[in-house]
């Protein structure tokens, strides 16, 4: 399972890196969003089961049924933050499109010269 997840994380990172290297802002933004999901998956994969570490609320008898809740809390927070950032970036994209009528980085750069 861990190996599969690791491969999946690698694949997602590769895809997002490919997208981020593009010249078009929409794709770049999508690449960054994808990277966030990859990171969340990586955290999930690297969290271990709490056997041996006694969580603060359990007596240790039913430990094998539980997973460590903290990485999931981390991921949840990261998702919420990512949600806000994505909404902001999308709005910015819409506004840029409205004002400049292009989302090509190179064209944005050209307009800067005059």
């Amino acid at each position, binding site marked *: 399972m861990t190996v599969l997840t690791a491969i999946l994380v690698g694949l997602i990172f590769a895809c997002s890196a490919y997208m*981020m290297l593009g010249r078009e802002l929409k794709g770049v933004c999508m690449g960054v969003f994808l990277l*966030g999901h990859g990171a*969340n998956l990586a*955290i999930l994969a690297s969290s271990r089961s709490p056997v041996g570490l006694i969580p*603060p609320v359990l007596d240790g008898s039913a430990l094998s049924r539980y997973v460590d809740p*903290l990485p999931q809390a981390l991921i949840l*927070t990261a998702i919420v933050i990512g949600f806000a950032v994505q909404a*902001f970036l999308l709005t910015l994209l819409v506004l840029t499109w409205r004002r400049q009528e292009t989302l090509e980085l190179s064209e944005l750069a050209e307009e800067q010269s005059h």
Partner: protein
Amino acid sequence: MNPHLIILFVILPMAAGIVSVLLHSFKQAQRVVGLLFLLANAACAAWALATVVTAPDAVSRILTSQMGNWPAPFGITIVVDPLSAIMLTVSSVTCVAVFIYCSTQLPTRFAGGYFYALFHLLMMGVQWAFITGDLFNLFVAFEIMLMASYVLFVVGTTREQVRQAYKYILLNLLGSTLFVTALGWLYGQLGTLNMADMSRMAMMGTLPKSSIPVIALLLVVFGGKTAIFPLWFWLPDAYHTLPAGIVGLFAALLTKVGAYVLIRVFVMIFGPSQEVSQVLVPVLMISAGVTMFLGVLGAVSMHTVRRILSIHIISQVGYMVMGIGMGMTIGAATGSKELAVAGAIFFVIHNMAVKCCLFLCGGLMQTHAGSDDLDRIGGLLKKAPWLATLFMIAAMSLAGLPPLSGFFGKFVLIREAITQERWVVMTFAILTSLFTLLSMLKIWSYGFWSPAPEVSLEKADMRRAISEGLMHERPRIAGGMVAVVLLVGVSLSMGLGAQKYLDISTLAAQSLVNPEPYIEAVLGKERIREIEASRLQASRLTMDTEGVR
């Protein structure tokens, strides 16, 4: 003082932000209420500093509060130790000055809408980062701060600003993703993200070997935020497009939070671990030297006020990193480490006030002359003699002329470099200082000293600057001057009362280089006994092996 009240450093700016949103259509009310909140915040910070400094012993110098009464390391801990207290004090005073500047000088194109709410939320993120006791909350605080900064970056955008904003936002998002990944891995390795708990592990030498790459990854993340070599490329392009008030705020807070986190994480948490220091100190020292020198070379080559100052931020970060590196050096005397870290802390707070002040001065120059391109302005010495005087004080303080504040920071750092026999970085530090003086004199001589150039602003340019609110026929700069005077006052107090500030910085450095009191304050006495027991065991082990030999 009730230590639970330290959460006020988060509540106050947040409440100010909420009130600003509710008062959305009443600009004047937002300004008044915001200023009141900021003053209350500064008063709280001064009070916390006084409590921390006058406390009788090392453990009681550290105020802790466990959120929701959940004990550390399971719950969220917030901590104000001397380092946090001094950072909070100086940053809150700087924020008051910037707020006054922004509410009087900034054109409505920038200061409309949610500007004031964002200002407070940015501050909330920064202060949260200063008082948090675990790395994950640090991440959340960073995100709040960055989110506010993204929006401030794009309000009232020009085309150039939009393009740079994308670069800034995307790079920071990348940094944040790396940060959260590193945190997940670190948690997987250590089972905790509480700063005191990690520091305890580092002291006991129980950090697993495999956690060192993750810690190095954290250096990459924070290095990117702080803009150290080779991760500084985003900063010079991004900052110079912003109006002076906003860039003053960013210069005072954003990179300095990065520097604070570098001190906190690498000196306090992982500093006690030999393995980590072995890997990181050479990296930090090389990066420090290159950062400061390349930064200042860049600054000298630039020709507009904001560009010079922006690139300068990078160069100044080099000094801070140099102090941090020397504070982690294995084998150096504890006193020398403490002094190096104290120098770095002093330098951070000095830089907060002075750098911000210079940006605000640059903004006022632009208000007078319509541009901040050094080729097109001049003669401001006659036009604005007071501004010229204040600029000169701040600039010389940045360059490090005694008895101004920059001198003492550099003096302590360079002295410790000599003690630790780090000749190369010391040479770079002194050279950088000279070039800093040169770049400041460049602004002085072109902007203030020389007569106004023949090729002055063209009429069309002038009209555009006026219509954009960047220039005024008869500039009203009283509010801006108040802000600048306040900041110059802070800088002068650091120069003339350097001993007092250095004492506090040393106090802060002591609790960082030896984090035992911090661990005791957060985790309780038993954990300290564990550390002592493990140390005893280790010394016994070495004795045994020696006996075998």
